[in-house]
């Protein structure tokens, strides 16, 4: 049942855009099952020709105003993410994810905490003190990963032309891993599509 929740409907628009070399630009709009643009979704494109990721850093998820900021942080595999506490209360940041289990016991503003994410996957973050706090560290192995903006749009350049897979992750997606995927074929002129999430 959950398998059929998400299906990708692909609308391919042939863009007669000239591209330099073997790369093109991919533009993707994501719409939720209600048809509205879905913001904060992570769109990744996996292609065999993709280069490896590079850790640049620094990566931070602050605890501010009893929330994780940003809500979703995309980091390359091997990145070390800092969890500075900007609130006056203390937090207990944890994750029980298979990608990365960690448990940063109560700490305050003066204590610096960092976690190394060495495997790709989604790491949901929680605070044992504050149930309402929720955040995600998206550990990616592909350089083509971006968050949709408020219009549910994401645009990535330098995507190698050829076949690949688009994956959309969002916590609201009711599918294993909260991820929907769709194979794509990136033309030299680029690729633009709209993902509509279905139940």
């Amino acid at each position, binding site marked *: 049942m959950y398998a059929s929740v998400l299906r990708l409907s692909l609308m391919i628009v042939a863009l007669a855009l000239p591209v330099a070399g073997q790369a093109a630009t991919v533009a993707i709009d994501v719409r939720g099952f209600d048809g509205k643009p879905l913001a904060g979704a992570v769109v990744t494109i996996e292609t065999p020709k993709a280069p490896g990721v590079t850790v640049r850093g620094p990566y931070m998820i602050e605890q501010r105003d009893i929330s994780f900021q940003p809500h979703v942080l995309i980091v390359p595999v091997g990145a070390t993410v800092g969890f500075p506490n900007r609130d006056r209360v203390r937090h207990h940041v944890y994750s029980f994810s298979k990608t990365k*289990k960690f448990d940063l016991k109560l700490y305050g503003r003066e204590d610096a905490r960092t976690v190394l994410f060495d495997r790709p996957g989604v790491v949901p973050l929680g605070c044992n003190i504050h149930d309402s706090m929720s955040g995600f560290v998206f550990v990616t192995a592909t350089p083509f990963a971006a968050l949709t903006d408020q219009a549910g749009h994401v645009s990535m350049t330098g995507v190698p032309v050829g076949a690949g897979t688009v994956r959309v992750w969002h916590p609201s997606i009711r599918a294993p891993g909260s991820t929907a995927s769709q194979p794509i074929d990136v033309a030299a002129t680029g690729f633009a599509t709209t993902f509509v999430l279905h139940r």
Partner: protein
Amino acid sequence: MDLRRPRFRHLRTKLSVLYASLFAVTLVLLAVVAQAMIWTHARDSVRQELITSGSVYDRIWLLRSQSLIASADLLSRDFGFRAAVASGDRPTIASALANISHRAEVTAAFVVEQDGQVTGPSGALAATVARFPFAVPNGRRDAVVVVAGQVYRLILSPVMAPTQVGWVVFAVRLDGTEMHALERLSAIPLIATIMRSDGAKRWHAADRSVESDAAVDDLVEASRSSRTLATLNLSTGRAFAIAKPLAGLTDRPQAAILIRYPLNAALTPYLPLQAGIALAGLIGLILVVLGSRRLAQGIAGPIANLDAAARALEEGSHAHIVVKGRDEIGRLAASFNRMSVGILERESRITHLALHDVLTGLPNRTYFRESLDQAILQVGRTGGAIAVLCLDLDRFKGVNDTLGHPVGDALLKAIGAMLSESAPDGLVSRLGGDEYAIILSGQFDADRPRALAQSILDMMRQAVVADGHQIATAVSIGIAIGPADGKDADELLKNADLALYLAKEDGRGVFRFFEPALDAAARWRRQVELDLREAIQAGQFVLNYQPVFDLKADRIGGFEALVRWHHPERGVVPPVEFIPIAEDTGLIIAIGEWVMQEACRQAMHWPEHVRVAVNVSPLQFRNTGFPSIVLQALAHSGLAPSRLEIEITESVFLDGEGPVIALLHKLRAMGIRVALDDFGTGYSSLSYLRSFPFDKIKIDRSFITSIASDPSAAAIVRAIVDLATALDMETTAEGVEDTGQLNMLRGEGCGNIQGYLFSRPVESCRIAGLLENGTSQAA
């Protein structure tokens, strides 16, 4: 239907029953209304309670949900538990679930992971629980499901770590315990039963306490949209009920709670009130009955007394009522008392009048008869004797005639008083006229009747003073002693009368006891009377004739007709035996008529100078038809009136002279001769001679018999003859038996003789012979 109005013998009962019934009906009506109001009130309050309880129950259900959810949430948000779930640490999860099951008092706790994997107690329930998080409608965190016939409430709580990694599911079995917990929360004694659907529309009680029923089904169905109250007829009795369908996983609930309130339980709180009303009604009724009785007694009591008194009065006994109060009934009682006294007085006066003689105040004949009857009865039972004394004043009529009735009445009173004085031991009564009677009864001395009679006679020897007159009187007394002289009143009285008759016969002024011979004589008289009647019919009478010799003409101048009775058995009966009886019975009239006819007829055969003399009794003479009888006899025979001579005695004048004289003149006018018989023996013969010019005087034989030997008799005869000669009347001497007498009579100038000297009475056939040689014999 046959509704008979009850009939009351007592006004008291009637009033009591009427009042008590009216009050009882009122009380019953009140009780019925009160019961109806109680029932209505009970029903309304139960309805209200149920509706309230329904709302309360909803609230409780919600609270229980929230409590369970809170418990589940506590677990699902526990950091360690979340860590265990997120890391798939099943032993830890199972341990935590067992722990929470115990702590939160749930039947079972499960964890369902995102992939449907269930951790918790295994069994049929686990399979349902595995599907539950995915099947429950969005936003709902609880549902009631039926698993293997058991009803469970499932509670869902997501496990966030921090994203959802699974669910904690609590299962609470909805059983009797859970329902009892629910019942306890209600203010009224509700009974909650969990019902489950069988998939069709049938609903069954999980604990089988309620039988499947269409009404229950309808109630549950109707309760899905809104709360409905129904009245169910369950096997345990009538009950008000509401249902609460419990939300399941689909639209159609699989379970429901039936909350009912048995009517008898609803009415239980009113039992004291009902009992109170019933008790108050009963007490009221008793008070009303007592009060009604008292009131009715007050009203009807005096009336009942009046009724009893009236009945007593009706039966003749004296009835006096105690007068109480001055109301109408009191006045009525007083009037009744006066009336009762008046009635009794009048009654006793009437009774006295009926039984007593007005003049003397003595008991009358009726009283006498009753007393005699009673005395005979009494003597029959207890022994003893009864004496009846019949008294008759001698010649009382003369007193009335000479002194007048007022004096006669005074005499009767005086004698009554004297008799009462003489016989204080007897009952003195006046039978009527101058007749009295005395009864002596019981144990009296054997000589007492005689002594009493004698004392009365002695007393009467003195003249009695009545109305200022000294009256010499006498009394005749007849005595009969019962039971020897008579078994019953009639016989006793008759025999006393016979004795009295004897006393009168024996010369008056004496007493006689009854003797059986008297009775025999009386019987003989009765037989003679009967025979006389027969004789008149059968013509047993004949006439004999005794010649009357005319001394002056020296020949037979006439015959005196003498009746003879040839009785077929007794032979010839002399006139002295039957004439008094014929006179007593009135048969003398018929006999006299026959004699008159026969004498006239025979006389027609005789020479013209020969007359016939016929004796006429006073009774015949008083008969108004007598002149016509004589006329007929003359007419039939053709006899000249001058040849008929009627002989009367002085006694015809006893009833008064006037009518007799008139009749005599009448006969005389017809040409008939009239002779005065037995002259000299009567009362005042001379005065009669002055009042009527008789044709002949017959000198009584008592003078003739001694005429030859007794100078005074001769002188009397001479005087009579002289007197007759002076009055121009003929004379006939009777009973001449010898020639000496004849010669004396002839010497004194007597005109006619008759007697044995000349001839005995002869039969008619010998008259002719007598006439032929009569002259020579007399000579």
